């Protein structure tokens, strides 16, 4: 275990640790552009120079290993001068078009300029001009003048997405990043290149000119597009999602997220179910609940009842749904709907396109309920159908079954055939509006947080059920996610009694589906 | 003949009260604003216009009237409704009633009700105005209103004494309580050339009367019952036409004070050295009436000037002035007058 001294402080680190990582551990700030903890080291920006007792010249701390007896100085005049000089070089041909740059506000170059250079340019000649505002892929815009040639983007494509689609062209001051002639950057993780780009050279088409980053509010949540459940940050402004950024989570997705997950929020921007509906006609929420309570009474006690659960529901909503299902009149069966399996790779994307199938299975098992496959359940021509969620495959079959049923109830965030065919439809929250937990395929339990507040009377599933049971049953079920979490998850050994708030940012787990 | 008498009396009331007093009162509300503006090097309100006619802003009183009539008439919760309704009416009516005995010209025809003891009538009826203040403040169920009413009651009672006592001197000199006799008496000449006006024989009396009557009118520098800057006063809760009535009363009172002062101290309708018995008739009578009106207007102007010159008193100063300065002075004035009269 090498022991080294940084600014006089001794630290012992594992072999193979870079100096910059040791500094990070000590909380010593080292400016950097090309170093990224998730990528290989390129050491080409030279922003991280520090003084070492083993070298007459400053060394790049992101590249040099920590070895025994090393003494590093990070605050000497030499280091300060080096940083200043490096920044001046980097900025030589920079267009300084921050006013129109989407990165402004979260740009490393801006921040480091103010911290380490802060002088007017001494470059008295015309600047080099390079291609600007080029679309180099379905999601990516390139502005080569802003590029500082750190090659992080190239390394993301090569090492993370395993799709070497970017490279550098030209030499010296004219170097810039480009795709190969006739191709574009279109791998499933292409938007990650804009995340790692320390400047505004690579930006996303989706976020282009949409909002300034300093206006956004970030909500730490989880992506619901596949069963990995990548940690994401939902950036909102004025109650609208502006973009979705991956959030660092070493146990789930490291630093990355796929394009599909980051663009999925568009699905819930339109066609939202904005009020309760009875037989396709909008009705007031309270009236709908009262009518439903009456309708439920009229279901014969021997009737065939089907409850279709969605693997996109939170554990808490699933718990509440099954609890209410157990109180329903008739012969109640449960089926699991949700999206069909799809594309998978061995990077992040999983075949299962639902975020909480594992959690739903756990809740079912805990409550001692068996689920049948959806197609089999529908074959039994149920007389009453309850459908939770809005992203079920076999939608047309469901609609047909609902037509045949005496009573059909849908809890859906989206307006569409399901909501219109139902006797009663209730508007629920989109995945960006719910509060609760999801358990991913690998047994990590993560907290989903609401980033938006619908302006209409949409409620989480558990709230609708809570309102319904107050009307219907003598007993009221809990309708608060925090309360539900404790009950729903109490069956997991390690979680007994753990409050929801303890689920943290990285999630807890991994859990197998081991019950008490 | 009775109905004839009634008709003529009614006509007189109409001409004097409605045409002259109320109009003058209304115009004074505008005069006050324009005059204060000019004193303060401003222009004042001059923009009310009908079509292209602006008439120097003379239309403002009309606009004000429309405004007052159309505003919400607000009665606070817990107010004594009847007294709340009555208060402004009492205030205005008692003020207007005083004009009944003012002789506007020579002879009986130019007085609405020629009483032998006209001055007593004025003092008696004028004191009624205090009810408007006290009842208005009390009935509105507002602490500030009540404070204003209390201040008002104390102030009016204090200064009424002085005001009455200062008229006594004049009565003593002329030996009559009838206002028309008083005016005739002022037609005489002193030493053959000086008109024997009240202000000549009772100069101290006039000054004290003016001060006391301005205090009676509750206008600056004696506007404590109103006290806009701290309590808003007895009409704090009054709005719309009710407030306008209180407001108008103030201006009618200005006219009243001017009329009494003109009658008692400035020879009423007398034009010096011209037809002191008022028997000439014709053009001269018209001139005499006109001169009386002129005197009233001049005295109104004087009151306004004083109001826009002097700052307000503190309450203790007000009481000190009333009881410790004005009252002894007016008593002394009466004593001196009596002695002089007894000696001559």
């Amino acid at each position, binding site marked *: 275990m090498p022991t080294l001294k940084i600014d006089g402080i001794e630290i012992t680190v594992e072999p193979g640790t870079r100096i910059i990582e040791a500094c990070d551990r000590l909380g010593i700030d080292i400016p950097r552009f090309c170093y990224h903890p998730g990528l290989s080291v390129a050491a080409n920006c030279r922003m991280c120079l520090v003084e070492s007792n083993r070298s007459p010249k400053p060394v790049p701390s992101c590249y040099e290993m920590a070895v025994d007896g090393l003494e590093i100085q990070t605050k000497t005049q030499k280091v300060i001068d080096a940083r200043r000089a490096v920044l001046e070089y980097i900025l030589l041909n920079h267009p300084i078009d921050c006013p129109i740059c989407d990165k402004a506000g979260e740009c490393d170059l801006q921040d480091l300029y103010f911290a380490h250079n802060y002088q007017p340019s001494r470059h008295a000649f015309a600047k080099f001009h390079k291609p600007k505002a080029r679309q180099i892929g379905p999601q990516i815009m390139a502005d080569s003048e802003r590029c500082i040639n750190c090659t992080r983007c190239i390394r993301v494509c090569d090492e993370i997405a395993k799709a070497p689609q970017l490279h550098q062209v030209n030499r010296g001051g004219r170097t810039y990043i480009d795709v190969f002639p006739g191709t574009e950057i279109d791998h499933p993780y292409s938007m990650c290149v804009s995340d790692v780009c320390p400047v505004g050279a690579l930006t996303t088409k989706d976020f282009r000119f949409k909002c300034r980053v300093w206006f956004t509010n970030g909500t730490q949540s989880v992506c619901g597009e596949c069963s990995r459940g990548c940690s994401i940050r939902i950036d909102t402004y004025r109650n609208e999602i502006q973009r979705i950024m991956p959030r660092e989570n070493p146990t789930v997705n490291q630093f990355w997220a796929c394009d599909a997950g980051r663009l999925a929020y568009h699905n819930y921007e339109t066609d939202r179910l904005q009020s309760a509906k009875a037989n396709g006609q909008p009705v007031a929420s309270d009236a709908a609940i009262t009518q439903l309570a009456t309708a439920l009474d009229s279901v014969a006690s021997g009737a065939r009842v089907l409850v279709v659960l969605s693997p996109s529901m939170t554990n808490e909503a699933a718990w509440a749904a099954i609890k209410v299902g157990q109180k329903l009149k008739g012969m109640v069966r449960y089926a699991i709907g949700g999206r069909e399996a799809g594309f998978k790779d061995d990077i992040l994307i999983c075949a299962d396109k639902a975020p909480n199938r594992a959690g739903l299975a756990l809740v079912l098992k805990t409550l001692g309920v068996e689920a049948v496959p959806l197609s089999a359940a529908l074959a039994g021509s149920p007389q009453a159908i309850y459908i939770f969620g809005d992203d079920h495959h076999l939608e047309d079959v469901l609609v047909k079954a609902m037509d045949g049923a005496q009573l059909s109830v849908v809890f859906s965030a989206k307006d569409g055939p399901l909501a219109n065919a139902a006797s009663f439809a209730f508007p629920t929250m989109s995945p960006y509006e719910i509060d609760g937990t999801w358990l991913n395929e690998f047994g990590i339990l993560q907290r989903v947080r609401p980033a938006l507040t619908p302006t209409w009377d949409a409620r989480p599933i558990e709230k609708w059920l809570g309102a319904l049971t107050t009307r219907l049953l003598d007993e009221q079920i809990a309708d608060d996610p925090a309360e539900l979490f404790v009950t729903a998850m109490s069956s997991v050994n390690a979680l007994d009694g753990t409050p929801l708030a303890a689920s943290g940012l990285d999630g807890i787990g991994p859990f197998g589906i081991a019950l008490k | 003949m009775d109905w004839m008498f009634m008709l003529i009396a009614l006509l007189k009331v109409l001409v004097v009260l409605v045409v002259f007093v109320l109009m003058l009162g209304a115009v004074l509300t505008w005069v006050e604003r324009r005059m204060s503006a000019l004193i303060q*090097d401003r222009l004042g309100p001059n923009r009310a216009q009908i079509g292209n006619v602006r008439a120097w802003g003379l239309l403002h009183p009309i606009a004000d009237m429309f405004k007052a009539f159309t505003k919400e008439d607000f009665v606070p919760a817990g107010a004594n409704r009847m007294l709340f309704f009555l208060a402004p009416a009492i205030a205005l009516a008692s003020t207007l009633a005083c004009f009944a005995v003012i002789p506007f010209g020579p002879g009986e025809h130019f007085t609405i009700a020629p009483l032998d003891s006209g001055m007593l009538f004025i003092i008696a009826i004028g004191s009624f105005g205090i009810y408007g203040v006290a009842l208005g403040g009390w009935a509105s169920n507002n602490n500030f209103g009540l404070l204003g009413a209390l201040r008002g009651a104390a102030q009016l009672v204090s200064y009424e004494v002085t005001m009455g006592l200062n008229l006594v001197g004049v009565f003593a000199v002329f030996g009559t309580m009838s206002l028309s006799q008083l005016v005739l008496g002022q037609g005489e000449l002193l030493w053959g050339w000086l008109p024997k006006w009240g202000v000549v024989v009772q100069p101290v009396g006039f000054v004290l009367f003016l001060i006391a009557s301005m205090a009676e009118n509750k206008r600056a520098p004696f506007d404590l019952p109103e006290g806009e800057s701290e309590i808003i006063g007895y009409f704090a809760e009054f709005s719309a036409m009710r407030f306008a009535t209180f407001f108008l009363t103030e201006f009618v009172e200005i006219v009243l004070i001017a009329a009494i002062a003109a009658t008692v101290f400035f020879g009423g309708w007398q034009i010096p050295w011209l037809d002191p018995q008022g028997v000439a008739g014709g053009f001269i009578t018209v001139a005499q009436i006109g001169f009386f009106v002129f005197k009233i207007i001049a005295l109104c102007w004087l009151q306004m000037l004083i109001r*826009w*010159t002097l700052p307000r008193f503190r309450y203790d100063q007000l009481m000190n002035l009333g009881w410790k300065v004005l009252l002894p002075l007016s008593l002394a004035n009466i004593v001196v007058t009596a002695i002089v009269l007894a000696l001559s």
Partner: protein
Amino acid sequence: MAKLVDRPKADLVIRSYIPEVLRGLRVTSRHFWVNFLTRKNVVTIEYPEEKYPYPPRFRGQHRLMKREDDSVRCVACFLCATACPADCITIKAGERSDKNEKYPVSFEIDYIRCIFCGMCEEACPCDAIRLDSGDHKLPGYTREEEVLQKEDLLAKGGLSIAKQGGILQ
């Protein structure tokens, strides 16, 4: 140290207030008559007909400046909206076809909120927004009238002498 104020003992004449009151009356009546007859000292400006010349740094209604080709100079950087303490600037950015890339598709200023502080002008990196039109924002009868659009703001605009993307001399 406390300052001692010289308070001469008032004699009877002063305490009777009569000379001072008369003096006051003389001052007020002089002002009255002078202004009544000649208007000499009246300082009133009869606003809509007469106007006071505003000082050159008067901050009035905003205007958006133009480029040589008459297009809007603003690049929709939102710095004005960020600096605005009243949060009254609403911009929607869009893509332009020429090299300037970004421009405001819509640019609204809500004059009900604006406090004419000039922070937006101060913040603008492009000399695109100014408050030097020399005009008031005239009052209106509806809220909508109080929100001026890009077109209204451009109507008062002119060329800026500032050079964009200039190099250091």
